[in-house]
C-alpha cells in the first residue's frame, strides 16, 4: 500500500518558565493507506501534542520547530494557514477523548454535523441536515431523525462520541486521527465504539492513527504500533511482533506490568501473585535526565545510556525500529 502520511524529524516545543519543553522530539513515522497505526504512550509522553501537530493545531506557547509532514505527497509545513484549513476536516479529521468539550453546547448535534458540510462542501442547509441524520445512522445512533435535534448535554458520553465520529466522517476524510477516543467511556461502550471504528475504517477505506495509553485497545485495533516515551518514539513494529517480542526495555516492561485476564493464577500458598512493575515514574518533560529518558528506570541501563540519546534505527528486516543502545551503537550500527 502507498503511504498516505510520512512524518520526518518533527519537533514541537513549548516555552515555559522551566525552559524549552520538547513535547515532541524529532519524531519520524509513516502511515500506509488503509492502515491503522497505534500510537501508545503514558501521560505526558507527547502523543496528544503529536496529534495536534499533524494538522498544525498546536496551541501557543507551543510551536512546531522543525520537521516535515508529507500528506499525499504534499508537505503540510509549507502550506499557508488557509490551505491547511482545507486539509483539516476534509482530508485529515480528528477525534478527541472528551467529546463534551469538543462539541458546542448551544447547537443541536445534527447542526454541528451538518456545519462541516455547509462550510467545506458548500451544501445547502437542508441537504446538509439530511446528510447529518444519515451519518448519525452510519455511526449507529438509534432514532437519528429525532436525536439530530438534541443538544450535546442530552446525550450520554458514548452517544456524544458517536456524534464526534459522524462529524469527522462528514467530509469523507482519508485519514482519521483518534486521540484516546474511548478513554472517558465505560468498557462496554468502549467495545461498541472500537467495533464501530473498525467497521467504518473498512467501509470508508480510511487510514487511522489511534492514540491510546491502553495496550488492549491498541492490540485490538492497530496493524502497526509506535511506542512513545518522553516525547520520542522508542519502538516501532507490526502489532504482532511488538507484543510477541518487544525490543525496547520500556515496551517490554510495560507489557509485563499490565494485568491480563486469566493470568492472576491460583493463589500461591495463600499469597496473591504480584505484578512485574516498572520502578520509578514517568519523567517530567521539564526535567529530563541526560541521555536516554528511560535510563533511570531501565533494568538494562549501561553507562552510555546516561550520556547520549539513542536514535531510532531499523532492526532486522520486518519493518521494525528501536531506539536503544542494547540494539545499536551511537552511529546506528546494529550490535
Amino acid at each position, binding site marked *: 500500500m502507498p503511504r498516505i502520511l510520512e512524518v520526518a524529524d518533527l519537533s514541537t516545543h513549548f516555552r515555559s518558565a522551566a525552559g524549552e519543553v520538547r513535547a515532541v522530539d524529532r519524531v519520524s513515522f509513516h502511515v500506509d493507506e488503509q492502515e491503522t497505526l497505534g500510537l501508545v504512550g503514558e501521560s505526558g509522553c507527547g502523543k496528544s501534542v503529536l496529534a495536534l501537530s499533524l494538522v498544525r493545531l498546536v496551541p501557543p506557547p507551543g510551536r512546531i520547530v522543525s520537521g516535515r509532514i508529507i500528506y499525499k505527497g504534499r508537505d503540510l509545513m509549507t502550506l499557508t494557514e488557509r490551505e491547511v484549513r482545507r486539509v483539516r476536516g476534509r482530508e485529515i479529521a480528528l477525534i478527541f477523548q472528551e467529546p463534551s468539550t469538543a462539541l458546542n453546547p448551544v447547537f443541536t448535534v445534527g447542526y454541528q454535523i451538518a456545519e462541516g458540510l455547509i462550510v467545506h462542501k458548500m451544501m445547502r442547509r437542508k441537504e446538509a441536515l439530511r446528510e447529518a441524520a444519515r451519518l448519525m445512522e452510519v455511526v449507529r445512533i438509534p432514532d437519528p431523525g429525532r436525536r439530530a435535534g438534541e443538544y450535546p448535554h442530552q446525550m450520554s458520553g458514548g452517544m456524544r462520541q458517536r456524534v464526534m465520529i459522524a462529524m469527522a466522517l462528514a467530509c469523507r476524510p482519508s485519514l482519521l486521527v483518534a486521540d484516546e477516543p474511548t478513554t472517558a467511556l*465505560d468498557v462496554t461502550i*468502549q*467495545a461498541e465504539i472500537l467495533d464501530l471504528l473498525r467497521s467504518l475504517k473498512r467501509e470508508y477505506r480510511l487510514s487511522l492513527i489511534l492514540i491510546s495509553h491502553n495496550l488492549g485497545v491498541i*492490540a485490538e485495533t492497530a496493524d502497526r504500533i509506535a511506542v512513545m516515551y518522553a516525547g520520542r518514539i522508542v519502538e516501532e513494529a507490526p502489532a*504482532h511482533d511488538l*507484543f510477541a517480542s518487544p525490543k525496547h526495555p520500556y515496551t517490554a516492561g*510495560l507489557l509485563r506490568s499490565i494485568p491480563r485476564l486469566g493470568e492472576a493464577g491460583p493463589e500461591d500458598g495463600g499469597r496473591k501473585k504480584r505484578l512485574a*512493575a516498572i520502578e520509578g515514574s514517568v519523567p517530567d518533560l521539564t526535567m529530563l535526565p541526560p541521555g536516554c529518558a528511560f535510563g533511570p528506570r531501565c533494568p538494562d541501563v549501561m553507562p552510555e545510556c546516561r550520556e547520549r540519546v539513542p536514535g531510532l534505527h531499523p532492526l532486522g528486516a520486518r519493518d521494525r525500529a528501536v531506539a536503544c543502545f542494547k540494539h545499536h551503537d551511537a552511529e546506528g550500527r546494529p550490535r
Partner: protein
Amino acid sequence: MSPGEAGRPLLQVTDLKKHFPIRRGIFSRVAGWVKAVDGVSLGIAQGETLALVGESGSGKTTTGRCILRLLEPTSGGVTFDGVDLLSLPPGAMRRMRRQIQVVFQDPYASLNPRMRVGTIVREPLDIHRIGANRRERDEMVAALLRRVGLDPGMRNRYPHEFSGGQRQRIGVARALALRPRLIVADEPVSALDVSVQAQVINLLIDLQEEFRIAYLFIAHDLAVVERIADRVAVMYLGQIVEVAARAEIFRNPLHPYTRALLQAIPIPDPARARERQVLRGDPPSPAQPPPGCRFHTRCPSAVEACPRIEPPLVEVAPGHWVACHLHPGPGVGR
C-alpha cells in the same frame, strides 16, 4: 445467609439504599428519585478483599460512601465488627473511623495542597492522639512513608512535588496510619499511569498480607480486580447482579452483564482475536430504571419474564449468587 457472608463478617451491609431526590422548579419540588443504591447487601471478612465492580452509574462509589458515612443512607444496615454504624452518634463514629479508612481515586485532588506530606500523614495520628508526643508521631510517619516506598527525607515537601504514583502512596500511608481493619479503596489505581499502576497494586497486596486489612476495592477494571480480589460483586444500576469468589466469577460468570463486562475488556494480545458480543445501547438512567430485570434492555439473552419480574439474588452454587431468570438456582419455589 446473605450474599457475601464469608465466615463472621467484619463488615456487613444489609439492604442498603441511597435515593437522591431530583428537584425541579423554583420551590425545589421533588420530581423523582435517583435510586443510586437500591438494596445492596454484602459482607467482608477480616483480611479479605471484596471487589465492587461496575460501570459509571452503577452505584459502586455511592455504596462505598454510605459505608463510610460520608453519605447518609436512605435505609438499610451497616454493621462493623457487630456495631451498627448507622445509629452511632458522631463522637462514637469518629472513634470508629480509626478502624475504617479510605483511599480515593484521584491523588491530585484528595491531598491538601497546602500541607506538607509529613503533616498529611501525621494528621490522623494527631487527631486521634496516638503516640506519647509529637516526636513519637513523627517517627511513626517516617516508618509509614518508608513502608509505602517513599523516602522519609521527603516529608517536608508538598504534594505537587510528587508524581501521581507517589501521591497515591502518600494517600495509602495516611490511610494506614491508624492501623485500620478496613480500607475502602475507591478506584485507587485508575488515575495512574499504566507503568505505575502495578506498583500500587503490589503495595496494596503487600500491606494486606502484613496487616490483615480488609479491602472494599471499588473498581471498573476487571483485570486489576482479578489480581487483588478474593471475592467479586458486580453492580448494575444500583443493585448487585452477581457475587462469587474470584476464580469462580472469572471462570464461570453467569449473569449476562458480567459476561458482557468480561468480554468487553480489550485483550493486550493481537494474536488472540476474540469473539465478542457487543452490547447495544447505553445503560439506562438510574432515575428511570427499567421494570423487571434492570439489565433486560441491553441483555442479549432476555426472556419473556425479564421485563416483568425482578429476579432475586439467589445462591446457585456455594458462595455464587446471581440475580437472573436464566439461573433460578436450586432454591426456586422454596
